[in-house]
């Protein structure tokens, strides 16, 4: 029995490889584009980060000079620190808030469609618009502070954008306002996919709702959480437009971010080498997150 199974197995495999040849030919341009643009350009960038490119790319290699300079720059160090803080807090808060909103919306609220639209609405805006909106809200003259002072509380002060200690919190507020809705909608869709009988079973078992969420539902939602995490994480790493629109890195360098460092190095300071080195660092950090995740996610399935 098992002998015939083994003998048959190799005969089946090649058939699967050449199945759908037309589909594979049709996908070829897309595959080539992906290979050339993503991998090719990434490699080109990495290679040129070891050169002393200035205004134009050069091929004069200088070893790790660019990286030494990069890690000796106060602005870059501040950017890394900022994105670490922003990233961790934004990730945690948008997952937690998004899940809470999704769980609340799952309680069969009335006018759910309207809620969903409202919650998803900020996501449809570009970060530039979000930045401008929040700049107004937080502006001392026109925003919250101005309004409260208008009510008669003359000494009220709320000006987070111009205080180095609070500017990141303000940026988080804007970022969460924009990004949480998407997380909530992704998780809501996944929550809807959870078999209603599981809820009934846990009620019959006498398990309180919060425990069911933690021990039963959240494990079921793991793939949705993964999707949401990847989406948020990529948004965080490339965070650029929100900074430009909201604070332009200020006050001082209190809200600088790596992507802005790259942009400024390449296009304002005519220092391509620095930009390449910084973007290589960003690439490396993304890979450091993605590769273990991919192994965990896709490697595990085959074995299971």
């Amino acid at each position, binding site marked *: 029995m098992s002998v015939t199974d083994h003998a048959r197995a190799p005969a089946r495999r090649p058939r699967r490889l050449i199945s759908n040849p037309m589909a594979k030919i049709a996908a070829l341009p897309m595959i080539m584009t992906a290979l050339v643009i993503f991998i090719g350009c990434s490699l080109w960038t990495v290679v040129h980060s070891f050169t002393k490119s200035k205004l134009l790319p050069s091929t004069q290699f200088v070893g790790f000079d660019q990286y030494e300079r990069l890690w000796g720059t106060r602005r870059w160090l501040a950017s890394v620190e900022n994105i670490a803080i922003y990233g961790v807090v934004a990730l945690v808060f948008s997952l937690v808030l998004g899940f809470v909103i999704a769980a609340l919306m799952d309680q069969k609220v009335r006018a759910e469609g309207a809620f969903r639209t409202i919650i998803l609405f900020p996501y449809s805006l570009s970060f530039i618009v979000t930045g401008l909106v929040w700049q107004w809200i937080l502006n001392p003259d026109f925003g919250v502070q101005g309004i409260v002072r208008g009510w008669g509380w003359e000494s009220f002060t709320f000006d987070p954008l111009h205080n180095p200690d609070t500017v990141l919190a303000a940026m988080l507020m804007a970022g969460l306002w924009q990004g949480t809705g998407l997380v909530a909608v992704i998780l809501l869709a996944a929550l809807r996919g959870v078999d209603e009988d599981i809820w009934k079973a*846990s009620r*019959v*078992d*006498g398990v309180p709702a919060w*425990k069911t969420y933690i*021990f039963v539902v959240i494990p079921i939602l793991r793939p949705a959480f993964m999707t949401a995490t990847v989406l948020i994480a990529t948004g965080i790493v490339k965070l650029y437009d929100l900074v430009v629109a909201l604070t332009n890195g200020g006050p001082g360098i209190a809200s600088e971010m790596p992507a802005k460092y790259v942009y400024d190095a390449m296009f304002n300071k005519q220092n391509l080498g620095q930009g390449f080195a910084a973007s290589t660092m960003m690439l490396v950090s993304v890979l450091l997150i993605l590769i273990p995740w991919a192994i965990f996610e896709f490697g595990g399935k085959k074995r299971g």
Partner: protein
Amino acid sequence: MLDQTQTALDGISVSIRDLQLSFGAVNVLQDLNLDIAKGEFLVLLGASGCGKSTLLNCIAGLLEPTGGQIFIEGQNVTWAEPSERGIGMVFQSYALYPQMTVKGNLSFGLKNARVPKDEIERRVTRAAELLHLQPLLDRKPAALSGGQRQRVAIGRALVRDVDVFLFDEPLSNLDAKLRAELRVELKRLHQSLANTMIYVTHDQIEAMTLADRIAIMRGGVIQQLAQPLEIYNRPANLYVAGFIGAPPMNFIRGRIEGSEFVGPVRMPLTGYGWSEGPWTSGDTVFGIRPEHVKIGDDARHCACQTEVTIEVVEPMGADTLLWTRIGGDEFRIRLDGQTTIHEGQTLPIGFDIDCASLFDAQSEQRI
């Protein structure tokens, strides 16, 4: 008054009084009364959408009734939480906790209820033994077959050590062979545990084989509550008569004139087991099951005889189904074994009054 209720509940496991449930303007259950004896296997049978699951969910406490009361083991549980009612429930979709092992599934509720560890161990072991789950205890539900999953779901109800089991179409997602196996296993389980079981299904074979009593539901109302063979032999109304039995009962429309049924066939009514008076006149539906129709020589001795032309022959191996018409209405005949009868053949048939049913054409009730 209270005393009366109390004595009335002796020997009763689940008692449902004037239960009502509506979703908005839709009345799903209307003034439903039902007493289920201790240790009884009651099957709720009915077409899709008749309110079986709704009734079961009310008993479980997963739905709040709009009116009426529910007693379980003498306690008024109308407003109690599902976990406090002394019930265990098994669902059609298994509803296992997918990220937990079989053992985790069985013990999750108990751990949560702070049952001591060795007691949990004891109950899980016992359930695993009863349901042949020992080799599967460390697997996740995804690595189980449908039948194994449903056994785990039954086990999860079992470890709760409750008086009443509720099943909502537990076998519907299984293939026919497995369904038959698990049906027998359920019957054995009921015999060895002697718990009260309330079982929802729309499969009549399950209902007939498992039930001590069957409650046939339609539109949120119980049409007949009786033992399986009573329902088969003496259906309370046209709906039940048409619902139970496959293929369903044949109906012939006509009138009663004196001591005779007159329609496309004539049938003397002497010897009929009247439920309601002997009737001597009125519009009536005469019902006879396909398996009670005799053909050929056997038909000669019957009280009622006629001739039919066979339209379709359906051989099914163990039996054969013949399709014909009497008075324009479809008429089915079921023969044991195999036959040489062919389409277009004209055949004498006959049937006796003692296995027939008569229904009032107006009220559709058995007479």
